[in-house]
């Protein structure tokens, strides 16, 4: 019996637990522990679903759904689960580096290599990307007054491909090893000669699945924004978050292709003996760096632009003021999007091209700092004279302004090739990009969760715990990463698993303390969500507008109905909902209702995701029958779907009318809440706009006031 035909290269020793039996050591026990957590976590999820009888709702209401709101929430759920893994890995690495002065520490070099590779890969492709994609999915159609994205099924397929990639990375905890080549997987180290195992293949296929999903997402969102805006919503009336979504989508459309090309070439080198990036035979590994960063640099802006959009929404709303310099923010976003394609070489200044090439890209890199600076001034000026409330999102925003500028300054330093030659590949670089991504992207997403959570679920998050988590995250970040600048200048290289210089120790200890604080912040955030779910009654804000919002998404109930807008809104200005509230035209009943056509749920997307995951697993382990069968099945599903004709269902006008009129009646009868009461249980989601407190919606007096924050 030829087992290899059936199981490919999987052997019993491929399972992570075999390592702990054959070679008992702390490093192996940690690996096995992580594997057990993955297995037990999956098992616990299965038991929970079975006990609660949630399998059917999970399948019927979520996995088969093509509703952009549910797709968005599922994206963010993936991001949070993957974040938990990657942040623990980061803490492990910090602990190892602290323990490993003049000794091996407690992790093997190989295990450490896997940790920084999965940490980077997960944080970029399976935390940051799903987080921004989920957020754009949820918010953008609501902001432009649309009922869904242009291609709802394609949207669900993107989600499932991303999920397939995430599952593949989780599987690598249990079966086999992950790559040790870092998140950028530079050959020739990741070539077959130096990394013969399955690790790099896990990286290749997980990343490829994610990147195909992102390309399709970008396409979908760009079409949505171009073609599905509600009447009157001209481009220059769009909220800034929608603008950044548009620019991000365009970046996704163009930037993912080079990554796909690079991973395909690497795969051909590894599987079929091609010579794209090999030593000798005409291979050129420098082209890999070139292709990877053709993708990699726009990717940085794919991540940060949506966060910029979030910051624009947050600062305007919590300052109760129209955003300062709307037009300049839009043009700054466009400039960043275009320039981001022209700076990729700064990731490999040291690769040996002539000084002229380096100089040009160095200058381009410095220029890209200018539009970002414009944005910072706009946000600052928005706050001037505003009615600022120091809510959790606003705290994150202020923290962002302070720390992001410092990170940006180090970026301008690194843009100088002469300086880059000194600190290239040191912890200085690590400090720089974490300084951009954590306060910028990650905290931006956290602020967005605090901001839009009440829209998605109908109740606010517990403000006190939110602030508590902020006060762990923000100093935790500073402690964890500012010492790395110093270490980098002292010469500490990145991705190093042991040291010999005792001078590093105090700084490493500080960084470790910061990592612990960040973990505490994450724990508080999880606790915040749990507590808020339990206290959802006093926190409820079903009337949809808890923060005195400005764009259209705040004009509808929370959570929004399946059809989003009972009647498509008509827009005559920027900040349409805010203007309507001020003019007293908000919450008016429409003249007439019409039937609404919505797409039916379908198993197409989850099936494609399942087969894509199986296909990738087959490729990783050289289980050819599985790869072939799954690949064929993917296309069978697609073709079968193209023969389906009954894909839409009608929601009758009467249903829509009943729901919408009930909502409008509730809003009209509700007493409004002023800004100084917005964190109390009086806030049911009807806001009295700033400056109109005396005129409408008398606050109920005498009611017991319960302060939750």
């Amino acid at each position: 019996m030829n087992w290899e035909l059936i199981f490919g290269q999987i052997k019993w020793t491929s399972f992570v637990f075999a390592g702990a039996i054959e070679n008992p050591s702390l490093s192996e026990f940690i690996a096995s522990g992580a594997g057990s957590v993955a297995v037990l976590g999956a098992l616990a999820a299965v038991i929970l679903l079975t006990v609660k009888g949630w399998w059917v709702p999970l399948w019927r209401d979520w996995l088969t759904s093509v509703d952009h709101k549910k797709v968005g929430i599922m994206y963010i759920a993936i991001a949070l689960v993957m974040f938990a893994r990657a942040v623990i890995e980061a803490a492990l690495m910090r602990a190892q580096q602290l323990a490993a002065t003049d000794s091996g520490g407690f992790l093997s070099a190989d295990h450490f290599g896997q940790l920084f590779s999965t940490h980077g890969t997960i944080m970029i492709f399976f935390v940051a990307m799903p987080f921004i994609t989920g957020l754009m999915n949820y918010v953008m159609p609501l902001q432009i007054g649309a009922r869904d994205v242009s291609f709802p099924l394609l949207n669900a397929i993107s989600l499932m491909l991303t999920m397939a990639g995430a599952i593949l990375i989780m599987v690598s905890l249990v079966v086999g090893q992950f790559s040790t080549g870092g998140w950028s997987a530079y050959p020739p180290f990741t070539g077959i000669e130096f990394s013969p195992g399955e690790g790099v293949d896990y990286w290749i296929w997980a990343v490829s699945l994610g990147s195909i999903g992102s390309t399709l997402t970008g396409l979908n969102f760009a079409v949505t924004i171009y073609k599905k805006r509600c009447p009157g919503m001209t481009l220059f009336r769009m909220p800034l978050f929608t603008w950044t979504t548009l620019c991000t989508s365009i970046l996704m459309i163009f930037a993912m292709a080079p990554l796909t090309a690079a991973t395909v070439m690497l795969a051909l080198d590894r599987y079929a003996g091609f010579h794209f990036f090999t030593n000798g035979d005409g291979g050129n590994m420098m082209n890999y760096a070139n292709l990877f960063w053709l993708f990699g640099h726009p990717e940085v802006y794919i991540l940060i632009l949506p966060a910029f959009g979030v910051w624009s929404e947050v600062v305007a709303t919590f300052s109760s003021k129209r955003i300062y310099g709307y037009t300049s923010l839009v043009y700054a976003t466009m400039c960043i999007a275009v320039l981001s394609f022209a700076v990729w070489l700064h990731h490999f200044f040291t690769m040996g091209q002539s000084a002229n090439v380096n100089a040009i890209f160095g200058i381009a890199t410095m220029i890209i700092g200018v539009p970002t600076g414009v944005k910072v001034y706009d946000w600052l000026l928005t706050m001037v004279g505003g009615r600022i409330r120091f809510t959790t999102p606003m705290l994150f925003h202020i923290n962002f302004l302070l720390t992001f500028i410092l990170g940006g300054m180090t970026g301008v330093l690194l843009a100088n090739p002469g300086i880059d030659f000194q600190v290239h590949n040191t912890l200085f670089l690590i400090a720089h990009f974490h300084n951009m991504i954590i306060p910028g992207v990650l905290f931006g997403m956290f602020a967005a969760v605090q901001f839009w959570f009440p829209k998605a679920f109908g109740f606010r998050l517990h403000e006190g715990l939110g602030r508590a988590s902020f006060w762990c995250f923000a100093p935790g970040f500073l402690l964890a990463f500012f010492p790395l600048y110093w270490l980098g200048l002292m010469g500490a290289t990145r991705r190093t698993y042991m040291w010999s210089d005792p001078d590093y120790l105090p700084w490493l200890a500080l960084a470790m303390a910061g990592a612990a604080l960040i973990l505490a912040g994450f724990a508080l955030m999880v606790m915040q969500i749990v507590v808020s779910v339990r206290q959802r009654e006093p926190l409820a804000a079903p009337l949809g507008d808890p923060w005195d919002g400005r764009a259209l998404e705040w004009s509808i109930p929370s959570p929004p109905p399946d059809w989003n807008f009972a009647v498509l809104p008509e827009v005559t200005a920027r900040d349409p909902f805010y203007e309507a509230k001020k003019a007293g035209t908000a919450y008016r009943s429409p003249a007439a209702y019409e039937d609404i056509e919505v797409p039916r749920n379908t198993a197409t997307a989850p099936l494609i995701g399942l087969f894509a995951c199986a296909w990738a697993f087959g490729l990783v382990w050289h289980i050819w029958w599985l790869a072939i069968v799954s690949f064929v099945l993917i296309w069978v599903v697609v073709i079968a779907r193209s023969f389906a004709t009954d894909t839409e269902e009608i929601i009758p006008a009467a249903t829509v009318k009943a729901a919408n009129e009930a909502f409008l009646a509730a809003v009209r009868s509700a007493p409004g809440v002023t800004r100084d009461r917005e964190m109390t249980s009086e806030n049911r989601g009807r806001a009295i706009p700033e400056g109109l407190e005396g005129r409408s919606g008398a606050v109920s007096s005498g009611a017991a006031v319960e302060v939750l924050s």
Partner: protein
Amino acid sequence: MSNRIPADLPAVDHDEEGRERRSYVIGLVLALVLTTGAFAVVWLDLLSGAAALGALGLLALVQAVVHLRFFLHIDLQRSHRDDLLLILFTVLILLIMVSGTIWILYDQHMRMMP
């Protein structure tokens, strides 16, 4: 949105069909001439060196435009159309990526010469 023009009155008109047919035929003839021309340059050794490469590149560019114009029906008059903007933006990105890659890789290659 802005460019959605109601087309309520379908007026099937055979001139229209003839005109569209002619467009394809013109496209085919031009493409054939250009392709054959490019082939002839190399096959008959009409030009050599940089001149040959320049001429071939130019012919390819013209032919790409012919295809876009006569087969894909894209032209400059409808500048409000999103797809024209998109293709121009794509060309910009393509130019940056391709010329950048070639520049970087050739520069590195030169410096590796013994």
